[in-house]
C-alpha cells in the first residue's frame, strides 16, 4: 500500500517561489451522493439529495441560511455523525465504494476527505509546525522528524503560507492573523494527504483581502484535489467554482437540492425559477 510519503513524493514540481510540488497521480477523488438524508435526532435537516461531484474541480454548495448546506457537506466525510443525534441515510460513493458501508472506518474516510471549518481552528497549545504535523503525528505511531519537516514545508507551501511563517514555525498557531490561521488549517488538512477537501464557509470570518488569498489558493489546489465549498456568498461561488449546487428549505424546513450544474449555467441561465430568484437577490 502506498504511504502518504510515497503519494506526496510522486509529484511534479510547479514553477513557484517555494517550489510547490503538486500531486499528479491517479487519485480520482470522485464522490457520488445517492439519496442522502440527514437528521438531528428526529429533525430532518437534509432530504434526499443525489449528485455527482467532479474530480479535480471546485463544487460550490449555495443557498440561504439554514438550508442544510453545512449539514450536507459534513455528511461527505462522516462528520455529521459526530454531532449530537446526527444520523444519515442513503450513500456516498468515494471512488465507487460507499463510505457509509458497515466495514468502513470513519477515521480512514476523514483522512481521505479533509475538512476546513468556518472559524479558523488552529490548536492553540501547538506551534505552527506542530499544527501542520498534528495530523501525521496523531494518526500514526511514529514519524521520522525529517519526513515531518518535509511534509510541513510542502503543506505550508501548498497553502501559500510558507513565505509568511518560515521564520517563525515555533510560534503559536494562535499568533497568526485570521486569514493566516485559516490557511494554516488548510495546510494542516493537506498534510495528511487527502484526496478531497471540504471547506465549510472558509471565508465568512475573513476580510476581503484574506478571502481573495483563500480563493486563489483554492484555484491552485483544484489542479490536484477535488474541492467542495459551502458558501453563502454568491459572488464567491461565481468566482471560484466550476460546478454549483443550489439548496433550499422545503415546506418541512429540510434542505433539498433545487438545481445542480455548471456554475456558468446556474448563474447565467438557471433552469429553476427559485434558483433565478435567489441568484438575482430576490430573497435569501
Amino acid at each position, binding site marked *: 500500500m502506498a504511504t502518504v510519503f510515497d503519494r506526496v513524493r510522486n509529484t511534479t514540481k510547479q514553477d513557484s517561489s517555494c517550489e510547490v510540488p503538486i500531486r499528479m497521480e491517479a487519485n480520482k477523488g470522485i464522490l457520488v451522493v445517492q439519496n442522502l438524508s440527514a437528521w438531528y435526532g428526529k429533525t430532518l435537516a437534509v432530504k434526499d439529495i443525489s449528485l455527482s461531484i467532479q474530480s479535480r474541480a471546485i463544487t460550490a454548495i449555495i443557498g440561504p441560511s439554514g438550508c442544510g448546506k453545512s449539514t450536507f457537506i459534513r455528511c461527505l466525510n462522516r*462528520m455529521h455523525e*459526530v454531532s449530537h443525534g446526527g444520523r444519515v441515510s442513503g450513500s456516498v460513493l468515494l471512488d465507487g465504494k460507499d463510505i457509509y458501508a458497515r466495514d468502513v472506518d470513519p477515521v480512514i474516510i476523514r*483522512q481521505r476527505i479533509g475538512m476546513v*471549518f468556518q472559524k479558523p*481552528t488552529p490548536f492553540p*497549545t501547538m506551534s505552527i509546525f506542530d499544527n501542520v504535523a498534528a*495530523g501525521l503525528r496523531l*494518526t500514526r505511531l511514529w514519524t521520522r522528524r525529517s519526513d515531518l519537516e518535509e511534509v510541513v514545508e510542502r503543506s505550508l507551501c501548498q497553502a501559500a503560507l510558507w513565505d509568511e511563517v518560515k521564520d517563525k514555525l515555533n510560534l503559536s498557531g494562535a499568533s497568526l492573523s485570521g486569514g493566516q490561521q485559516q490557511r494554516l488549517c488548510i495546510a494542516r488538512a493537506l498534510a495528511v494527504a487527502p484526496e478531497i477537501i471540504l471547506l465549510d464557509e472558509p471565508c465568512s470570518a475573513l476580510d476581503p483581502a484574506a478571502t481573495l488569498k483563500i480563493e486563489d489558493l483554492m484555484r491552485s489546489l483544484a489542479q490536484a484535489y477535488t474541492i467542495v465549498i459551502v458558501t453563502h456568498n454568491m459572488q464567491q461561488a461565481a468566482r471560484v467554482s466550476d460546478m454549483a449546487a443550489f439548496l433550499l428549505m422545503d415546506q418541512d424546513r429540510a434542505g433539498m437540492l433545487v438545481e445542480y450544474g455548471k456554475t456558468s449555467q446556474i448563474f447565467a441561465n438557471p433552469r429553476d425559477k427559485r434558483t433565478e430568484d435567489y441568484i438575482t437577490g430576490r430573497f435569501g
Partner: protein
Amino acid sequence: MSGTSHLRRKWFNRLMLVLSGCGAGLAIMILGVILGYILVHGISYINLDFLTHAAKPVGEAGGGMRNEIIGSLILIGLASVLAIPVGLMAGIFLSDFASPKIAATVRFAADILAGVPSIVVGIFAYAILVRPMHSYSAVSAGIALGIIMVPIIARTAEESLRLVPNSMREAALALGITRWRAVLGVIVPGAITGIVTGVMLSVARIAGETAPLLFTALGSNFGFQGLTKPIGALPLQIYHYALSPYADWQHQAWAAAFLLLLLVLGISIVVRWVSGRRHA
C-alpha cells in the same frame, strides 16, 4: 414620594455595602489570626534538628519530625500515584465519552463521594484493608487519601476539559484522528493548566487530613519500614503531641502545624501561578 424612595434605596445600598464589607473583613481576619497565631507559636521551634532528627522518647530534650515529614510525603505520593490516573480518566470519560445520562449519574456519584466525611473514608479503609491485612499500613492510608482525591481531580479535570471548545474536537476528528488520540493529543494539552490546578488542590486537601490516618497509618515511632507497616505523618504527630502533657512536645506540635500550613500555602501559591499562566 420619589424623593423618599430614592433616599431609602440609597441607605439600603449603603447598609448592604457595609454588611458585605464586614463579612469579607471577618473572613480575611480569621485567616490572618490563624496564620499569625501558628506563625508566632511555631516558627521559633523550627530548626535544623526539627527537620532532620527523629522523635526522642519522653523526657529527652530535642528530637524532630524527620520521620513524620518523610511519612507525609510518602503518603501524599502514594495517594497521588493511585488517584491521579483514576481521577483524570474519570474526568476524560465525563467530558468526552459518557452519554449525558451516564455522565449525570457519574457526576452525581463523584459529588457525593467528595462530600463523604474523611473519617468515614478512614473507617472504610480500616474495614476493607487494615482488618484483612491484620496491620495498620502506609498502603491503606495512601488508598484512603487517594479515595478523597479522586472526585476532586475528576470534577476539576472534567470542568477544564469542557472549557476546550468543541471546534477543537471536530478539527481533530476531521483530520482522521481517533477520538482517544484527539483527546490525549489535543484536548488534554488544551486543558492541562486546569487539570494541574485540580491535582494540586486535591493534594492540598489531603496533606492535612488526620481522621482517615488514625484508622490506617496509625503513626509510628520509627522511620519508613515498608508499605505494609504503620507509618508516621505530620497531622497524626500534631494530634498526638498537641494532646500530650509535655511542653516540649506541644512546641513541636506548633512547629509541625506551621510546617503543614507552609506546605498547603506553598501549593496554593503554585496553583495560582499555574492557573494565572493560562491567561498570560
